[in-house]
């Protein structure tokens, strides 16, 4: 039961991440490999505020979101000028630079030693520390994010983003302000990713830079692409798939030492197969055309 709850909590955290990335990839058409960086900035920002100044989880979370959104500007600006492969490479560069700062700025982040003993989130006088409480807590936040993103995607903003994705020149000819739309997509996406970073830090109570590497970015992207991007269903399927897969592998009796590798191999294999036969993923809409 505890194991199941742990998985479900991680799914909630990842689902938030995947939904925020969907805004960029599926709606904006911007294939970004920098999402673990925003996840990390959220986790570190919130943690450092909680432990350094001693503020409560929620104000720290808001500050973490703002911080992550601010750093999103550094990647949003190049996205206005770079296309295709060049933008992917720039986002990858941003990811690596953020990781290097988290890893090497020992005075601030304690670098490879990580930050242990992160306090649990507190809601008024209630400390959220048991697994069921955490499940409900992350679940509620996930639902809030879910509805926020759903409203956003159905709003004129979401439709304008889709228009850019399909044909930037036409969208701009129709009077859409492309730079502003793209920058907002980045700011919102990075802010939402920071929420899952803060939840992760509060849940695990220990963070170190190895949770926010390029491999993690690739992993988040592959969940989204397996599920599919560009609508609400796709990321949900990706996240659910992520629950079932490790369980199914346990069912097959794979030893724990190779199970993570097998899981990643399945993701890699699925990406190749899906791109060949079904580029929109299992349940997505955007076909990368």
């Amino acid at each position: 039961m505890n194991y199941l709850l742990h998985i479900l909590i991680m799914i909630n955290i990842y689902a938030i991440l995947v939904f925020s990335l969907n805004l960029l990839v599926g709606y904006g058409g911007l294939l970004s490999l920098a999402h673990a960086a925003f996840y990390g900035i959220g986790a570190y920002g919130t943690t450092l505020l909680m432990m350094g100044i001693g503020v409560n989880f929620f104000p720290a979370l808001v500050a973490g979101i703002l911080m992550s959104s601010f750093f999103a500007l550094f990647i949003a600006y190049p996205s206005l000028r770079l296309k295709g492969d060049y933008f992917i490479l720039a986002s990858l560069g941003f990811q690596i630079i953020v990781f290097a700062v988290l890893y090497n700025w020992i005075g601030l982040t304690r670098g490879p030693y990580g930050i242990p003993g992160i306090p649990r989130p507190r809601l008024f006088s209630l400390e959220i520390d048991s697994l069921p409480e955490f499940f409900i807590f992350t679940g509620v936040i996930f639902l809030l994010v879910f509805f926020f993103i759903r409203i956003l995607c159905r709003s004129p903003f979401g439709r304008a983003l889709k228009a850019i994705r399909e044909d930037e020149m036409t969208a701009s000819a129709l009077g859409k302000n492309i730079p502003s739309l793209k920058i907002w997509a980045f700011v919102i996406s990075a802010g939402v990713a920071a929420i899952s970073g803060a939840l992760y830090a509060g849940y695990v109570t220990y963070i170190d830079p190895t949770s926010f590497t390029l491999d993690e970015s690739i992993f988040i992207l592959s969940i989204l692409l397996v599920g599919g991007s560009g609508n609400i269903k796709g990321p949900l399927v990706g996240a659910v798939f992520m629950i079932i897969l490790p369980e199914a592998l346990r069912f097959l009796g794979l030893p724990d030492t190779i199970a993570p590798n097998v899981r990643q191999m399945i993701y890699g294999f699925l990406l190749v197969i899906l791109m060949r036969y079904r580029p929109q993923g299992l349940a997505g809409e955007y076909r990368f055309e």
Partner: protein
Amino acid sequence: MILQFIANGIITGSIYALTALGFGLIYNTTRIFHIAYGAVYTTSAYVFYTFYKILNLPLFVSVIAGIAGGVILGILIEMIVYYPLYKRKASSGIFIISSIGVYIFIVNLIAMVFGNEVKILSPGIEKTYEFWGIILTRIQLIEFGGFLIMFLFYIFLLKRTSFGKMVRAVASNPFILPSFGVNVRKLRIEIFAAGSFFASLSSCMVAWDIGMDPHVGMPVLLVSAVSVIVGGVGVFLSPALGGLLIGLTQSLVVWRISARWEQAVTFVILILFLLFRPQGLLGIRKRVEEVL
């Protein structure tokens, strides 16, 4: 002291240059951002390891096997994954995601079979040579020599053979060659074989020098891609310049600041280039519509 760091920078730079030449060959002709190139690099090192340490075959045979392993994998990726997408005229996004998929698959397969720990090949301390106060090991000299030979060979290949002529033709206009009756499928296979050869050769040399783990391919791929952009997209020899430049910069960073910042500095260079000189050092300025 500074001379030693410059020498080290040139040696690392020549390895980067070698892998970047291969990546550039593939990128300039097929426009595939070949992330699985990192997996080719890793595989070659592990095939080398398998032949040399597990099957106990002679060094020479093992190196050839390692290179062959990488080249075969490169060809297989093109035949099984990329070519069907090319025929379907898939977008660059599809190619890059497929390539990521291949990379994830192969690297995790290797990690599953061989484990995540570092494997060492060379038995002991390398013989060292001293020139005017600069100390270099034997393998470092081989790395530098390998790069020089391959660089000259590559120039010959591009300028003097019909393969080179077709490669340059594809790079300047990918659509015109088929209408001249050139077998594009065969040409693409040759391009992938040649590109993978560059990666495999440098992979085997580096594996002998410092060993390997399943994740060695990614940093090498990243540096290669950055070298191609910094050197200039569309020019076949420019990745070598980019690679040497990055090798030297990293070495100076190690000397003046700290080894832990070398990767970050590489990407700071990349982002500066992308923003202020997107055509790279030697590249030709193109309009956005032409690039895509």
